[in-house]
């Protein structure tokens, strides 16, 4: 019974961690690509301020992806 409870908790944590990590990283990476695309378009249209803002969004999103990857590897190797 205790073993089953432990497995249920571990399974639930697996489900939550998988969905949050997968969907979160995919969202962040999509935002980064959106930012790069907007940066290219806005730069071409001579809108440097807006282009800089798009580049900043892309940078933050890429930083989030990198942070998620590093955090995942630290969690994996720390057990």
């Amino acid at each position, binding site marked *: 019974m205790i073993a089953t409870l432990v497995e249920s908790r571990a399974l639930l944590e697996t489900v939550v961690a*998988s969905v949050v990590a997968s969907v979160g990283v995919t969202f962040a990476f999509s935002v980064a690509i959106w930012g790069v*695309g907007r940066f290219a378009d806005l730069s071409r249209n001579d809108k440097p301020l807006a282009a800089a803002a798009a580049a900043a969004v892309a940078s933050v999103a890429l930083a989030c992806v990198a942070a998620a990857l590093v955090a995942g590897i630290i969690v994996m190797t720390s*057990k």
Partner: protein
Amino acid sequence: MSADVILVIVVVTALAFDFTNGFHDTANVVATSISTGAARPQVAIGMASLLNFVGAFISISVAATVANDVVNADVITPTIVFAGLIGAIAWNLITWSFGLPSSSSHALIGGVVGSAVAAAGFDAVLADGLVGKVLIPAVIAPVLAFLAAGMGIGIVYRVVGRQRPGIVSRGFKFGQIISGGLLALAHGTNDAQKTMGVITLALIANGSLGANADPPLWVIVSAAAAIALGTYSGGWRIIRTTGTRIIKMDAAQGFSSQGAGAAVILASTHFGFPLSTTHVINGGVMGAGAGKRLSAVRWGVAGNIVTAWLLTLPAAAAIGALAYGLTRIFGTGALGPVLVSLMSVSLIVAVFARRAQRGAPVPASSG
């Protein structure tokens, strides 16, 4: 002396299984990168091979589960482990021969469970561990990857749907190098550990290690090397099935499916669940296809794969039980394992000869 000979045969057989695992399974890991053109086949396979090796050193939770939580180590002998491995290898070869990406992991666990039941009855199986750590995760994991990839691709199309296709495609192809690498790392850490667990189980059964012992370093290094070599050796026919026949993918779908697969496998590995990477990546591939358009998935091919999944545990268990019975015909010494090993090698040569007669396997890019 006889026990040591059997142990050596078990270790060699386990490493051979690990090699076939890499050969058979890792094609699934690189299929999406190759299918979308994110990486050339040689580069994708080389990178997967290297990351499989590295991944094997990340964790030992799955090895502990295989060694201690599936069958009762007190009644296990090296001969039982050997017969289980034969069951797994035979099933892997059968499915490989037909180009079906079934699960090496479930074949391994099915084989060991089958031979243990044949040798010592159902008491040899730890039902709690088998159900809680293998069967339930086996059902949940591919569904989870399917849903995560489906949600992911939905988000992707909402965020970048109005961007120019060139930038989006290049961006996700770059992203696939990272997601594909993570998936290979995840595969290495989960799958190589199963071989480590089986060798550790045999060492415990032989009295070479104490109960609940962790895998020794030489076991970790040899399992990592075997799966990496197997990966490098390829598996083109299965790449073709997974990469192009299930759905025609774009780079965003590839990224989403690989990201979902890596997340599910790594999270499961952390908790010691011996998953099938094949099931998970195929679940992710189908989820990414269904998330874009349900009809994009070739459900007939997907159905064949699901059938192979369902058959794997019982089929490998039956072959494992048969291999144990065959081994015991020759007594409890080393003669049985030696003869069954020779028969297995003959079978492998026959399968490869049959494949060679059919012609060279077809790479994904031409499919």
